[in-house]
């Protein structure tokens, strides 16, 4: 199966802008299905972006983040051709990672 993480990172010399779209149901645990039963919570708890072994962006997420979250941020530094590593862990212990080259 394809990665759940789509990412694009562009460097403009001094800063690198990162956009990411992550496929995840992000169920809050408050919604009921058609049968009236609660859909159990299933959401990303931690999202990390690493550059050169250092975390440049860490998110602690909960039930309030919607399905298929989109993230955009910038960090100082980052050179074209370098790797950016993205990983997430959800409340069920599932994980996924992806690596993208900074453009």
């Amino acid at each position, binding site marked *: 199966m394809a990665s759940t993480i789509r990412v694009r990172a562009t460097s403009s010399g001094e800063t690198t802008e990162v956009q990411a*779209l992550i496929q995840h149901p992000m169920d809050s645990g408050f919604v009921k299905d058609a049968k009236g039963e609660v859909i159990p919570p299933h959401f990303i708890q931690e999202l990390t972006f690493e550059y050169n072994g250092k975390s440049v962006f860490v998110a602690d997420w909960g039930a309030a983040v*919607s*399905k*298929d979250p*989109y993230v955009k941020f910038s960090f100082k530094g980052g050179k074209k051709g370098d790797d950016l590593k993205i990983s997430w862990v959800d409340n069920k212990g599932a994980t996924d990672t992806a690596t993208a080259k900074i453009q």
Partner: protein
Amino acid sequence: MRPVIHFASAALALAALAFTAVPSAVAADKPDPVADAKAFRNFFAQKFPKVKLEDFVNGPYSMNEDMHRQWEEKEQFPPYEFSLDMGKEMFSKPFKNGKSYADCFPNKGIGIRQNYPYFDAGEGKVVTLELALNRCREANGEPPFSYVKDEMAALTAYMAFTSRGKPFDIKIPDDPRALEAYQNGKRYFYTRRGQLNFSCATCHVQTPGERIRAEVLAPALGILNAMPIYRSEWSGMGTISRRFTTCNSQIRGVPLNPQDDEYRDLEYYLSYVSNGLPISGPGARP
């Protein structure tokens, strides 16, 4: 109150449009879709002189600068990507009997979305793309999909994507039944319904660019070109069927069933009057 003042002046414009576009209905003459389409385009061109004709397909995003900037950003990383990929996979996967969607459609289903809906002379009714897809499945022993989201949205997203940029090319054959279907769709569009007593035109002809609560309303011209859409409100994809039914619920009317005759005719009318505008689907909306 501002909405009331706007309503009155817009009602005048609407009356003018209705008068110029539908003298035939009043006089019970033959419908003139060509004249209708022209009047429809002119109405919106005059209302939004700074918007290029082909940009009307972006709906609310063409209605003001801030929205347009948001649309440009969103297109860099569109939320419909996952559904589009799923649709591409689904489309190429054969049915249990070995056949595939490509066998049901002209040109193997690629780059044909702009021809839908069409009037089927044999059946005497309008056939939409969503309907054709489910009929293809049933003809090949597969269960039909729900018309409103998920798989149907993914499939129509892929088919729309293969037609991106191609202008809507809806044909009304010289058949009184086709003209009747067209007129039916037009009548539906302009008829008030529901507790809120809104017609489609109330929001999308009278008040595009204005707000209904927090949403900026889209113009009716080109409104189907971006379908299916990933709608933030739905946290997911929705088809034309989804939008027609949910809109009816929102104005507190009883929605019809997806692909009921009236919805098919409505899609026929709305697509025809947007002929010439490019397919931009799949799209994203607030």
